[in-house]
């Protein structure tokens, strides 16, 4: 159970080497296979997640949620996906065609690229990058460009406003996000995500860094344009922000990318603060799935509980509260570490 996937990967590499490929090319083929696996995981996850989101929102609002197709409405998302795939792809005539058409593709590519460094089990990492955390943050920052492209390409004032808001918000919240994660990095002493997981063998970092966890969680919610921070989409005022003009599959790609980002950020949260794939009894890949889903449930819970925050409040919250708090946490962590070393407890 524990080593299923790593064994399969090893067997594939061995077989390819047996066919006469050099080690580099065999690794390259393995990379492509892993990438395909990630795309599959993402798609399946999104199908489950949309169903879960609708169910959770229904339960919170005293409704039943989807309950028609299949047991507890489980096949509803599949039906929706088929509908979206077969819908007409409308490209409005006065858009900036190429930007409009490629924005969702870049968005989904960027979202899928996030998964390259997340340890999805013991030794189950596509690339064990020595600056994995920095990779995650910097690739995550690319999604702002995609939103800006979508907003500009649509040639629609609501889309443009939504994109502007999204970008302003994402750039502002990226800073507290990164700084709150730095506290964890200081304790673990590495930017490599597998090292950070191993460093949590005795105690989860959420207990050592509660303030960092809270600031990370809030900043991640804003970064995902979710929950109380969904000003960029704001259906009631901007119809759907940057996604207004999109139809069919292109719109579905945006949706897919949003949920992909949600899974990635939750998985990073589990890795950074909740011990990653470590856990008793069950195999490691199951542990990270359980932790990720629990964190995502909290994200959904928050989204369906809190009303949307006003734009100026949102920005001032980031710059005037979240950033100073995370900086203070960083300073506190440094002093704490030195203190522990001085006392000889570390």
């Amino acid at each position: 159970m524990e080593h299923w996937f790593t064994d399969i990967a090893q067997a594939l590499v061995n077989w390819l080497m047996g066919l006469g490929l050099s080690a580099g090319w065999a690794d390259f083929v393995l990379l492509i296979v892993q990438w395909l696996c990630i795309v599959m995981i993402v798609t399946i996850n999104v199908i489950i997640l949309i169903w879960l989101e609708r169910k959770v929102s229904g339960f919170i609002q005293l409704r039943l949620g989807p309950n028609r197709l299949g047991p507890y409405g489980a096949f509803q998302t599949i039906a929706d996906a088929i509908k979206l795939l077969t819908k007409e792809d409308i490209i409005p005539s006065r858009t900036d065609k190429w930007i409009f058409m490629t924005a969702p593709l870049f968005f989904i590519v960027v979202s899928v690229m996030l998964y390259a460094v997340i340890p999805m089990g013991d030794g189950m990492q596509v690339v064990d990058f020595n600056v994995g955390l920095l990779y995650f943050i910097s690739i995550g920052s690319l999604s702002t460009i995609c939103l800006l492209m979508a907003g500009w390409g649509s040639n629609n004032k609501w889309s443009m406003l939504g994109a502007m808001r999204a970008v302003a918000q994402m750039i502002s919240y990226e800073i507290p996000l990164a700084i709150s994660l730095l506290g964890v990095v200081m304790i673990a002493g590495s930017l490599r995500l597998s090292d950070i997981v191993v460093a949590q063998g005795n105690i989860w970092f959420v207990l050592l860094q509660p303030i960092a966890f809270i600031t990370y969680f809030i900043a991640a919610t804003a970064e995902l344009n979710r929950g109380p921070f969904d000003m960029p989409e704001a259906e009631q005022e901007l119809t759907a922000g940057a996604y207004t003009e999109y139809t069919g599959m292109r719109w579905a790609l945006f949706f897919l990318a949003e949920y992909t980002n949600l899974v990635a950020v939750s998985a990073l949260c589990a890795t950074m603060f909740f011990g990653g794939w470590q856990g008793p009894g069950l195999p490691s890949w199951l542990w990270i799935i359980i932790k990720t889903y629990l964190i995502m449930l909290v994200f959904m819970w928050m989204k369906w509980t809190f009303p949307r925050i006003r734009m100026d409040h949102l920005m001032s919250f980031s710059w005037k509260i979240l950033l100073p708090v995370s900086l203070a946490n960083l300073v506190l962590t440094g002093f704490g570490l030195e203190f522990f070393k001085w006392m000889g407890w570390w």
Partner: protein
Amino acid sequence: MYGKGLLKGLWITFKHSFEKKDLVVRYPEQMPHLQERFRGSLAFDFEKCIACGICIRNCPNNVLSMETAKDEDSKKKKLMQYTIDLQYCMFCNLCVEDCPTNSLYFTHDFELSQFHRDDIKRVYHRPPELDQQEAAQKTSDQDTQTAADDKKEKQLRAMINAINKNPQKVLARVLDGEEQVEVLAAVLMADEKKLARMAEMMITDKEKAKKVALAFVKKELKEREKGGDQ
């Protein structure tokens, strides 16, 4: 404490998500409970309609239309076909409210979607048995009506005669006081029309007759007083 409200909100939604969801009606399996005055779809009762056209004039959206033909012998309008084009209906109830014979009414059937546009239109053709029924009724009606009229006429005449002959005795059935009866008799003798009306009322509705009689008496007494003063 800062953020107390947020935690409270989270707790409320958490509780809600485990409550029983009995607010929801699972519709196709379980029909919703509709109120008595719920306006589902508009229906028409052909037999009650008198083809007056009030409904058509009232309709703001031109939902309703009808075809009529002149009946040769009675020169009455005869309804041939009645159409409700339900796709334009906004269920304002103006037709139903003003229908004098209640031939239009709302039913509780709310499943109105159709596959084709033409299926939304409801066309009511004149049922053939209505013509037969009408023809049969016409002959029997005439007989019974004339017989009834004759009987009424006879009764009325008999009553008028009775009042003329013996006013005190007959009118005592209506009024109690002797003086009042006398006054009433005087009034009735003086006016032929009042007499006929009184007689008719005494046959059909005694209570009403009593009230009218009292009113007559009061008026007469007042006039007399006035005359006395002068």
